[in-house]
């Protein structure tokens, strides 16, 4: 049972995924459509990626003169960030050289260092790395020595990270202000499904010849990690951006021999079949990602029953759309809250979850000092 885009007749216009599915629709865009596309794409963090998609299709000229700088400017920033990410990863590698483990970079930094198409136009807030739990303290100490330190967290958040999360609090560099997320697993220990990090580490591969000493997950594990992240992470400000990552990863790997059976088998082994199912369902819904029929058959054991699926569709068809008012309908905010609660529900048992959500709802907002003052 595929999810039809026409099930919601009142569906607000998500121009970003529409043009990503078929760039030719841009030929019929009015100026008002371009206005909306730029706004939605900016909210979704996809301006630079769209720029690159249009460049690939030789369609840059289609962008009206008034709108073009928005795409160019985002692409300028993305190019600079990719250069900076490579340089920063090299700094991290040097800082952690004394540790008895390879440097494994995750998510966006992995796509960039491994020169994958999913790096195209990607913007960064931080660099994610994975360190074996047994070396976590050493890694943190080594990074502090090299100028990164944790700061700006409330004591509650600090405790929450250290006790329950699969990562330590974000570390920011004193001078460069770059942020590293140091993970020791891809999901919290308390999660329903907890893929053993060692299984992932056993299959790492070198990022590329130009980044010696830097490793990334294997192709299947990268995809599964991206899928897991998308459906276990509470907040989805870049939901559609993450889906386009997945779409690019899948299209890139799909040509490899036996890719799909390997992916499904690996998901099964890591207990991530359900996440994979949803990831494929929603990349196909938003981006027309090609998925062979056989894959759906193979995923039948992890396919949710139809009532649950209907509920999930109504949540994720909204929560993964660009985070812009023009993509919202009357249920979008409920859908986002539902995605948030569901992600936490999967991450921790109820006796931990309920106090945590109450704290986040009623106490944190009054302690928040993180937003900048206008200059």
């Amino acid at each position, binding site marked *: 049972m595929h999810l039809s885009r026409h099930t919601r007749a009142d569906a607000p216009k998500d121009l970003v995924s529409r043009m990503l599915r078929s760039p030719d629709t841009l030929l019929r865009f*009015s*100026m*008002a459509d*371009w*206005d909306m596309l730029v*706004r939605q794409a*900016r*909210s979704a963090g996809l301006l630079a990626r769209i720029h690159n998609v249009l460049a690939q299709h030789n369609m840059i000229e289609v962008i*009206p003169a*008034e*709108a073009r*700088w*928005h795409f*160019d*400017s985002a692409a*300028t*920033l993305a*190019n*600079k960030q990719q*250069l900076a990410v490579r340089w920063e990863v090299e700094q991290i590698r040097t800082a952690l050289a004394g540790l008895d483990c390879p440097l494994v970079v995750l998510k966006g930094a992995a796509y960039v260092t491994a020169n994958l198409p999913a790096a195209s136009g990607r913007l960064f807030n931080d660099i994610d790395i994975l360190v074996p739990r047994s070396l976590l303290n050493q890694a943190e100490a080594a990074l502090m020595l090299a100028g990164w330190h944790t700061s700006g967290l409330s004591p509650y958040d600090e405790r929450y990270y250290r006790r329950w999360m699969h990562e330590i609090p974000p570390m920011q560099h004193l001078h460069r202000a770059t942020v590293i997320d140091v993970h020791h697993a891809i999901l919290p220990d308390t999660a329903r499904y907890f893929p053993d990090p060692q299984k992932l580490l056993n299959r790492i591969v070198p990022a590329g010849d130009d980044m010696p000493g830097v490793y990334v997950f294997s192709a299947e594990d990268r995809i599964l990690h991206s899928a897991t992240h998308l459906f276990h992470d509470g907040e989805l400000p870049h939901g559609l951006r993450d889906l386009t990552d997945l779409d690019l990863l899948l299209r890139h790997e799909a040509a490899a021999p036996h890719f799909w059976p390997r992916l499904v088998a690996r998901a099964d082994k890591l207990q991530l079949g359900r996440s994979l199912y949803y990831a494929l369902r929603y990349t196909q819904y938003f981006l027309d990602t090609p998925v062979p029929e056989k894959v759906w058959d193979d995923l039948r054991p992890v396919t949710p029953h139809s009532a649950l699926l209907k509920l999930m569709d109504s949540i994720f068809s909204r929560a993964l759309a660009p*985070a*812009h*008012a023009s993509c919202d309908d009357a249920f979008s905010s409920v859908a986002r809250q539902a995605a948030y609660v569901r992600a936490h529900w999967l991450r921790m048992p109820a006796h931990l979850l309920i106090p945590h959500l109450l704290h986040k709802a009623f106490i944190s907002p009054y302690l928040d000092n993180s*937003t*900048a*003052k*206008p*200059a």
Partner: protein
Amino acid sequence: MKLLQLSSSDLRQQLAGEGIWLRAGPFSLTIRSKIPHVAEGLADLYGQFEVRSSRQAFADFHVELNPPAILRRWFRPQVSFSFDGSLPFKPLPLDQAYPMLEWGLNWCVSMHAHHYLIIHAAVVEKNGLAAILPAPPGSGKSTLTAGLVLSGWRLLSDELTLIDRKTGLIHALPRPVSLKNQSIEVIRQFSSEAFINRATHDTTKGTVAHMRPPKSSVQRQYEPARPGWVIFPKWRADAETLLTPRSKAQTFMFLAQNAFNYSHLGTDGFRVGTALIGQVECYDFQYGQLHEAVAAFNRLADTSTQDALV
């Protein structure tokens, strides 16, 4: 159509409704707000700007200033600046709504317009040459800028020097000139032609008001200018007016550090920056009396223009 051709009730209605479209230099904006001070500030300061055109279906920046939707609005009214639904700043007290609009617009440009090298500096033009005035707060940069544009110099910007990465020319963004504390009175004394709007007190920068840009500067806002000088002003009470040459290398380093987006541009930032430095004269400038400072700038413009003609 210019903003001053709108009746104040039309302006208020549009601001409170779907927003007013406005073009400032190379950027188009839509602004929404139900706050009377915002309507008043726009009517006072943006009269000469274009508000309606065939191109108004598209805007670069969609901003909104309204009270945040939380309970506290009743006991301490506040205003939030929204950039198309996202809130880059903490709310401020409601009576700071107008300065918050100006600060927010500076943020919109400096965070996004990477097709320019954007230097944190005022910039004014005479006889086709632009003088870039970078300086830390308190150096009298805005006062000098206001004095110059009230004396025949064209206002390009009081805060954001936009250098076109392709042509090296400076694009104008002649929005109102921000004046702080004593400089508000200094400028009132300097010229009876200065129109300065209602002052806002107790902001993080002290008392703030804005001076309306000269009509001719707004009319010529689509005309770029060639960089002529980089001049670092320094005001000191009773200082002599003195212009002294300055090292180009040091000036380059300062501009790079004080550009909003130098590092975002990679090697192209270096290329644009060095091309700029190659074609300007660099000076330190100290002054105590505004009219003397203006006279010194006029002499500089006249000499350089003569040089250029020889």
